[in-house]
């Protein structure tokens, strides 16, 4: 025995077929149209997803065919090469009259390559502040490059905590997508003390061991003679 579809069921099937054949006919919402590198945008003017860095990634609405109510949202333009910079924490975190260092890493996006120049500034409430030399330029060739940031303090540097900010520009004068990066360092002229055994501890131990060995040998010798 076969079943024949009822009228409400037929209507449902027809509606479904319409939705499948033309997804943009209902309302004004954008269709999700995968474009370059699989990125889409959700509405006109919205950033493309997944987000990328660089320009040329903002979705744009276009009409589809002759139907003005049907909009397609697509990401136009190819992503612009760009880069981010990251700073590792300055180590040591406390300096007296020595140098704290940090590694600057340039992370390239969208095939970015070229030279990135750095400049650094030290800011803080106390003066005079420690100094930092501009880090050497990094040449990005295969996706990333590093440079070394050095912050040095002299005896005249005032005690306190300072923020060291690194700015970068590429060959076209463009800054990194994530902007300037900062790390902090503190200056303390209090003398450092390293806790733990050192040479004198070892020497003391060796001296005690020698005395103990002599005593042991002497006792053995004495027992042998008895």
């Amino acid at each position: 025995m076969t079943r024949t579809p009822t009228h409400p069921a037929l209507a449902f099937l027809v509606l479904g077929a319409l939705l499948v054949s033309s997804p943009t006919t209902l309302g004004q919402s954008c269709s999700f149209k995968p474009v370059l590198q699989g990125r889409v945008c959700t509405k006109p003017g919205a950033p493309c997803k997944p987000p990328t860095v660089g320009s040329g990634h903002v979705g744009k609405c276009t009409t589809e065919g002759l139907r003005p109510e049907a909009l397609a949202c697509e990401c136009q333009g190819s992503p612009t090469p760009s880069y981010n910079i990251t700073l590792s924490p300055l180590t040591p975190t406390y300096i007296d009259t020595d140098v704290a260092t940090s590694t600057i890493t340039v992370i390239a996006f969208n095939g970015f390559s070229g030279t990135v120049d750095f400049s650094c500034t030290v800011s803080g409430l106390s003066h005079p502040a420690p100094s930092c030399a501009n880090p050497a330029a990094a040449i990005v060739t295969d996706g990333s490059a590093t440079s070394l940031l050095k912050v040095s303090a002299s005896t005249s540097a005032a005690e306190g905590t300072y923020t060291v900010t690194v700015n970068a520009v590429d060959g076209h004068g463009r800054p990194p997508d994530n902007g300037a990066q900062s790390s902090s360092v503190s200056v303390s002229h209090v003398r450092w003390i390293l806790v733990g055994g050192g040479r004198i501890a070892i020497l003391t131990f060796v001296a005690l061991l020698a005395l103990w060995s002599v005593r042991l040998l002497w006792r053995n010798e004495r027992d042998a003679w008895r």
Partner: protein
Amino acid sequence: MERATPVAQRERCVAMSSQPLLHAKLDLAVIRLPWLSREFLLRSSLVALFVLLTYQFPWQWLRFVTSAAVLRICASLGMATARVSFDTIRIQGQLFRVVIACTFVDVLMGSIPLLWDVRKSLHRNASRLLAVAVIFFVLNLVRLAIAQVLYFRGVPWTLADEVLGGFAYFAVWLFVWRQRTWRLLREV
């Protein structure tokens, strides 16, 4: 004791003539000096290896725990304390950085080859070493606390920390010596 007397007399003559020195050397050659046993030499080599291996790791967690314990002990003794970083503490305005040697982990690792009993199972040895680790940790904290107290009472840091550290190492050696299962000297 009686034998020792003539040798001592000849040694006194060394500065005057080289001939007695020759005799003295010959006499010393006759004396049979004890040799260290192979087992002890092997274990000693392993001590060096284990200590070298220990310094290949940063032991950050242990340095943090040790500095935290010292911080608490000093605070309980009425000292002004503050943590600066994971391994650095400020006590009475003075910065102290806890390095690996301060944790006694090198001493513990170096003791393993000397404390390992080859006749016992791995489990029993591991249990024993765990107990030893706890003992060493407490001993280390005691010596660090004493060092801090001595230092802030005017004793120079070299004396307060390092010389005391040497005594602590020696205490560990005496402990190892009492616990040993190996012979120091070769059997003749």
